[in-house]
């Protein structure tokens, strides 16, 4: 018993599958297109008297069963259609009308036919596809937009009357209005002034030209600071003098100058090369005073007066640099 129960749904499933396989191609074939598309009509407001370069409006109206929609991918692309005709624009308008669906294409053509006499030319037709999507599948219907005709005409007679001056064949040029330069000149002047102001601001930001800062004189400032402090305790004054010299060197170089950097410092700032011996003695004394813990010995070897003299010489060298 247990084995027979699932047999029944299996059979039903197989039958359903078979039906599906048979039905699927039917749903996709556009066999009944004629019945689904009711009418195709091309209208043009003036399909004659077209000159070289004229734009020609044409309207294609398709009536189909209500559930059909135009497949936009099948629309013709704007571009050359034949050697004398370009399609310029395509606009689509779909709307339901009483018991049917109306698809309206607005086509804009441009004729480039240089006609010598009035004649009728054929505008090629093109295929379109309408589709109806339902849960069971997709139904498509092909629509052929028929060939229609266009009457083109020449702009002038084939053999015009002879003229003495060939220029007389041409129509005179149209005349242009006079242009007043006043507002433009005013705008140019205003913008020029603005540009000048911006350049000034940039120059200030970048320290160009008149805004360039003159190099400071750190040694002169150090010397002034040293002379200003009088009456301090001698050790204190000596320490302050060494520090003032250090700060002057640091500021001149833009970095901290240690004793071992003296050679590199002199290489970078040639103006102070004459003071090499004095600077070497200063660094020696400073090392001894600050890091060797022997300030009195440093003062004895290189007294305050020498520090001040060196600073004065450095300030002089700095001024002449």
């Amino acid at each position: 018993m247990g084995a027979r129960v699932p047999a029944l749904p299996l059979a039903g499933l197989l039958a359903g599958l078979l039906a599906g396989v048979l039905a699927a191609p039917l749903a996709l074939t556009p066999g009944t297109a004629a019945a689904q598309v009711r009418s195709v009509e091309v209208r043009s407001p003036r399909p004659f008297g077209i000159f070289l370069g004229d734009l020609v409006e044409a309207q294609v109206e398709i009536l189909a069963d209500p559930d059909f929609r135009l497949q936009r991918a099948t629309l013709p692309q704007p571009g050359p259609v034949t050697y004398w005709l370009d399609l310029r624009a395509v606009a689509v308008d779909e709307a339901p009308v009483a018991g049917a669906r109306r698809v309206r294409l607005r086509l804009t053509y441009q004729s480039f036919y240089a006609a010598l006499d009035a004649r009728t030319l054929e505008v090629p037709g093109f295929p379109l596809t309408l589709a109806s999507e339902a849960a069971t599948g997709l139904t498509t219907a092909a629509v052929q937009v028929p060939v229609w005709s266009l009457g083109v005409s020449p702009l002038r007679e084939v053999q015009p009357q002879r003229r003495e001056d060939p220029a007389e064949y041409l129509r005179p040029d149209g005349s242009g209005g006079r242009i007043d330069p006043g507002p433009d000149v005013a705008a140019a002047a205003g913008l020029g002034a603005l540009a000048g102001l911006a350049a000034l601001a940039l120059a200030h930001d970048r320290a160009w030209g008149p805004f360039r800062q003159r190099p400071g004189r750190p040694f002169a400032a150090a010397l002034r600071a040293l002379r200003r402090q009088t009456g301090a305790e001698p050790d204190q004054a000596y320490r302050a003098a060494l520090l003032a010299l250090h700060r002057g060197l640091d500021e001149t170089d833009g970095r901290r100058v240690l004793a071992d950097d003296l050679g590199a410092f002199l290489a970078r700032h040639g103006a102070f090369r004459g003071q090499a011996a004095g600077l070497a003695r200063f660094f020696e004394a400073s090392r001894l005073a600050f890091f060797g813990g022997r300030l009195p010995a440093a003062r004895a070897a290189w007294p305050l007066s020498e520090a001040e003299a060196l600073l004065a010489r450095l300030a002089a060298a700095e001024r002449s640099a």
Partner: protein
Amino acid sequence: MLTDWRAAAARFEAEVAKAVVGQERAIRLVTIAVFARGHVMLEGDVGVGKTTLLRAVARALGGAYERVEGTVDMMPTDLIYNTYLGPDGRPRVDPGPVLARAEDLSVFFFNEINRARPQVHALLLRLMAERSVQAFGRTYTFPNLQVFADRNRVEREETFELPAAARDRFLMEIGLEAPRDAAVRRSLVFDPRFHDTDALVGAVAGGVLDHARIGGIAAAIQHAVRAEPSIEAYVVALWDALVRPAEAGIRLPGLDTATLVQGGASPRGVAFLVRAARVRAWLEGRDWLVPEDVRAVFTEVMAHRVFLEPVHELQRGAIVPALCRAAFETVPAP
């Protein structure tokens, strides 16, 4: 006594320089590390002479020397025990590379340390910090041990970055580059003397220094070299500048220094810095510290202890030296 030892240190440097040319700075730094009793990490390209330098140093230093190569499958026990099957087919466990020379071990060279796993790093951490390991149910101590490690900076695959704690225990990270001097480069390539590393290292006189006594000398140096209050203030100012560069007024092009440094520069690191600077002062024949001593060892001692924000971590090779340079250009001395 310290003067005699200074002469010995100069001899030591001269001997090592026989084997490794064009690396005066690296040799000076290694000498400082030896007398500061610090472990050293060498970093550099392949074939620039890292191993040759360390072998020459080990030979000139005297004492036992062991060397292991870091591999992905290496386990801590591989360093301590040597397990094999004896000729009678029975398993044997002998002391491994670390224990083989026991107390006499003076230089332990760990090649390609970043290829080893974190478990191995942990063992190494203990070896470096405490100079002892636990094995065969007892504690082995290595009073004279100095660990040298090297790391290849080209490859990043199948490597394990050292944890910050392990990196912090290295006194220095010395970057080794091929010499720039054209004459040295020529001789390195064409002189057959430099092609046979064994003969090259063999030419270095062995045991220039008595490795067993370096510990005592190192302590004596630390006591003998004075640091005035102004140098103390200078070192602390440098430390502040390194950890909070924006507050010290440091500007680096293209970087926001206010958010650049995440941390690091531990007090242990700064203590190491002063230790190395004191040794440098002693080697220069002074018994007091000057800012140049600090500057001479600063990058090697401090750079690997600074941890940047993760976005900048990949460029640390360029950023941290620039930061150190900027600190020296900004902090006033005295």
